[in-house]
């Protein structure tokens, strides 16, 4: 082996043997540093003959390039090893639980969710959302809605009263959202298409009745709206709301002072199990009252019943929420029990839309 070959073998062995970056740097200085072994060899080139130089020049330069490359490779290996060592020391237990995401833990009450669902559906049918006060006058809650003074129908409402004022007039907590029909007709000319979601109150309490509950009133007034339209509107609503292709509905005659003719609407259901199942079975469940707006109500709203006509309905929001989402009892709706809200509530990003589906 020539000296050069020996030198190459020694340097490469030293590079390979360098255990860390400091050792490698020492090897580099010892080999190709100013006074390195290889550098010393290269200094001799100047003293060589031309022929000698022609042989030794490429040989030494080739060796320098080879050493430089070997050092670089060794550097990469050592760097990777050192990073790996550091990373190994930084290991954590990724199975540790993270904090809960408020977007996942927050809850929207089913009543609010269902109101949003209803709004989405009726917005699509060209309805706007109207509102009115919870504390009403006797006039708006009863008289204007064609409840004659002393009529048994008034008693059916189990009304909450306030104490009489100095004129002897008693305000009431509205027993239905229908007063907003009058308030709307007083301020808006037909065509009217409104839905009125809101709180209503009756002095009644059991598993399916609560002293406070929520109603959705609907009102359509123009010069043509009739019972055939009423049936269509409510059937489309029920299909959309309950997210079914078809649902058996039963419209049967009934009585409400503020509609004539009046209809009650039942949904086909199966009550044989613990949970009410819609769209199957042999039972009917009453879900809403409806009818053509009574001529006296149109008059109270300042409209001529021979020119204008329309229909109205009232549906229990809590009740359809219970039906759709399977709550057996109404009372916990108003108890704010965290366990109930966690179970029956909706996440804040569960936004009901028609394009994304009411519920997912």
């Amino acid at each position, binding site marked *: 082996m020539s000296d050069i070959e020996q030198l190459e073998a020694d340097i490469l062995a030293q590079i390979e043997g360098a255990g860390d970056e400091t050792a490698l740097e020492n090897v580099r200085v010892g080999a190709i540093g100013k006074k390195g072994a290889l550098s010393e060899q290269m200094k001799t080139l100047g003293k060589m003959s031309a022929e000698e130089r022609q042989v030794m020049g490429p040989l030494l330069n080739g060796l320098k390039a080879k050493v430089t490359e070997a050092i670089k490779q060794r550097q990469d290996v050592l760097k990777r090893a050192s990073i790996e060592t550091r990373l190994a020391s930084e290991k954590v237990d990724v199975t*540790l639980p993270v*904090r*809960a995401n408020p*977007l996942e833990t*927050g*809850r*929207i009450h089913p*009543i*609010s969710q269902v109101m949003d669902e209803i709004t989405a559906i009726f917005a699509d*049918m*060209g*309805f*706007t*959302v109207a509102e009115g*006060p*919870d*504390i009403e006058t006797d006039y708006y809650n009863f008289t204007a809605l064609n409840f004659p*003074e*002393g*009529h*048994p*129908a008034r*008693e059916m409402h189990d009304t909450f*009263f*306030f*104490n009489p004022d100095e004129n002897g007039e008693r305000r009431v907590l509205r027993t239905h959202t229908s007063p907003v029909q009058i308030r709307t007709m007083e301020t808006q000319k037909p*065509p009217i298409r409104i839905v009125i979601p809101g*709180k209503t*109150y009756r*002095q009644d*309490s059991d598993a399916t009745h609560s*002293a*406070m509950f929520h109603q959705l009133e609907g009102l359509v007034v123009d010069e*043509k*709206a*009739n*019972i*055939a*339209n009423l*049936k*269509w*509107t409510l059937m489309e609503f029920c299909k959309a709301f309950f997210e079914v292709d078809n649902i058996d509905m039963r*419209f*049967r*005659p*009934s*009585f409400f002072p503020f509609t*004539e*003719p*009046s209809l009650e609407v039942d949904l086909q259901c199966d009550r044989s199990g613990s949970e009410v199942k819609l769209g199957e079975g042999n039972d009917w469940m009453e879900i809403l009252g409806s009818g*053509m707006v*009574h*001529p006296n109500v149109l008059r109270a709203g300042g409209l001529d019943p021979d020119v204008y*006509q329309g229909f109205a309905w009232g549906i229990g929001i809590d009740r359809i929420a219970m039906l759709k989402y399977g709550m057996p009892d109404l009372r916990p709706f*108003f*108890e*704010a*029990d*965290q366990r109930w809200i966690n179970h029956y509530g909706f*996440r804040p990003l569960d936004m009901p839309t028609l394009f994304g589906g009411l519920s997912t």
Partner: protein
Amino acid sequence: MKFTLSWLKDHLETEASLDEIVETLTMIGLEVEAVDDRAAFHPFTIAKVLSANKHPDADKLKVLLVDTGDGTPVQVVCGAPNARAGMVGAFAGPGTYVPGIDVTLSVGNIRGVDSFGMMCSERELELSEDHDGIIDLPDDAPIGTRFADYAGLNDPVIEIGITPNRPDALGVSGIAKDLAAAGLGKIKTPAVPVIEGEGPCPVSVDLSADGAADFCPAFGLRLVRNVKNGPSPKWMQQRLKAIGLRPISALVDVTNYVTFDRGRPLHVFDADKVKGNLAVRRASGDETFLALDGKEYTPSTNHFVIADDNGPESLAGIMGGEESGCSDETVNVLVESALWDPLTVARTGRDLGIITDARYRFERGVDPTFCMPGLDFGTQLILDMCGGEPTQGICEGAIPTPDLVIEFPVSETLRLTGVDVNASDSTDILQRLGFGVESAGDGLRVSVPGDRPDMHGKADIVEEIMRIRGINNIEPQPLPTLSAIGARILTTGQSRTRNTRRALAARGMSEAVCYSFIAKNHAVAFGGGQDELALSNPIAADMSDMRPSLLPSLLAAAQRNVARGTGDLALFEVSHVYHGVEPSDQSRTAAGLRRGTAQLESTGRHWSGKARDVGVFDAKEDAFAVLAACGMDPSKVQIEAGGPDWFHPGRSGTLKLGPKVVLGSFGEFHPMTLELMDVSGPLCGFEINLDALPEPRRKATRSKGALHMSPLQPVRRDLAFVLDSDADAATLLRAAHGADKKLITDVRVFDLFEGASLGENKKSLAVEVTLQPTDKSLTDEEIDAIVQKVIANVAKSTGGTLRG
């Protein structure tokens, strides 16, 4: 309203099945609420006692061998004294539910003797109170057949819900009329005989008292002499029992029977207990009256009674009196059939708390034209059952003649229902319902019969035609669309409500919906409790006052949750609060609270850090989130230290817009508030009046304007100031920002330090000031000049000095 199938068939000739009848009733507006096919009676069979021997170990018991008709005699232990060989009775085998003793039979062993069923008494079958012995049937009763068939207990009972507009359906005859109109058969209600009677009725009726004539348009009366009262016939008793009435005696049962058969309440007085003549008059107000329900009432002067010389004998139209009531000893009976003002009867019944079948009918309106026929019908039933001689009937006052005629354009049905029903079909339907119909040009002239006080105008006639023709015949028709794409349909307030809910839920809070009424002391504690907002008939004492704030409801909810073991809570509600009874006094409000460690980032203990208690700043963040959700920049809102009384005075703030508009408040709750609400902290909360937020200006363009992004790097400088501890951070920030409103784009507090090293009542606030050069880089001198100005401004407005 209950009736039996056979009863209906007294009035309706029909081939229809029970199911068809039930379905039709519902679909014509007489909603069937229940059908009792009386299957409970099915297991009871007629059986014959073959032998009856003394029980070996019990003196009063017998061991019977009973032939139930299936060939093998059955052994039954029986304690009835009348049990004897050869008798025929009603047998119940093991597995049968016996209603009178509420027991399902099993194979028994009574003192060592097996018993495979029982022979029943009438009480055990709930047929009567009789329990002296077992049912003793005639010898020819067919052994092995259903006892119910034999005894007439197989008559299905139908219960329908009657809406207040249908007094005509409060009698079986009226129901039959509706069914016949709907095509389910032919009416065959027996005609009422006209009873002339012998001689005048010796008792007169005086309607001359104040208001009596208005209250009582007509009063029919007759005496029947020499009746023999006793139990009514079995068929009548069975019908009355089937609909839940207790048979009393023939005379009383007749009044109940006519009430349900024809919707015509009657009353009977024992004539020998009536002193002098009868008068309808107002109660004096201090008279007491012992009614047939055994209770004593003191009607007021608003209420009318039928009185004789002894005083009130009947609460007119509602309930008769015990004193003049009929008993088994009655031999002379006065039969009353009168008309009463519906509203007065309703008010009287309501005031006195009496609900009777008579009141129910009178307050809905009974058919005036059946007043005198009703008297004759009742009389005839009495004569049939009790014998006697009737006098002539008298009718004080005058029977009002139904005179309402409705001009009905035939097209009205099409207009309101979308279905065309021609004149001939309309006429047909109306006539079957008892209306008089004449053709009049394009329309019909419809005369309303006396049993339909609910008819007022065209729409009512449409309903009659619609329900009889069938609602199922109305094909749904789409509601025409008004525009291809709907416009915005929510008001600003509605959008705010929606956004606020989602925003707070997105902060990990749970939405509550609480009652609008709360306990008075809670209302008072939160600034409410005015008399005008107190309910006069609350459902419970702690639900008496309209709430002035949502916070007491949420605190009460927190209390309940804590009691159930959920201590870390974040609840909110978006609803209305009430400051008066006018619509404008009701405001849309959002409120929330956090308890325990329920912060936005973390709730409860976590390996990554200590669980921190919630505090005023958590509530402030929530309040700001609400403002932002409503489209308001929270930095535009002034924060004033201190809040309403229910908050900690040093750890609460008021959100204001200008000096006058209060948007809301936030803070940690006052210890006294927590004590009142019986809940422990840490608890913080906020409340924002969404209606107080200004309506956002609607700009003509939706453009957000051009964006200028500086190519130059922002410069940041940190400055720490020492201030008095009660100096406001907000003032400091405003002063710092004011040093150069153009270049300073942000000032934020990054450190707060309070320590003895600063001196007594001092604190240090460190801020980071961001300068954003726009057109050229800032020189060190320029930056320094701005920083000096910041220092000077802060010193001027807060007295703070740069911390050395």
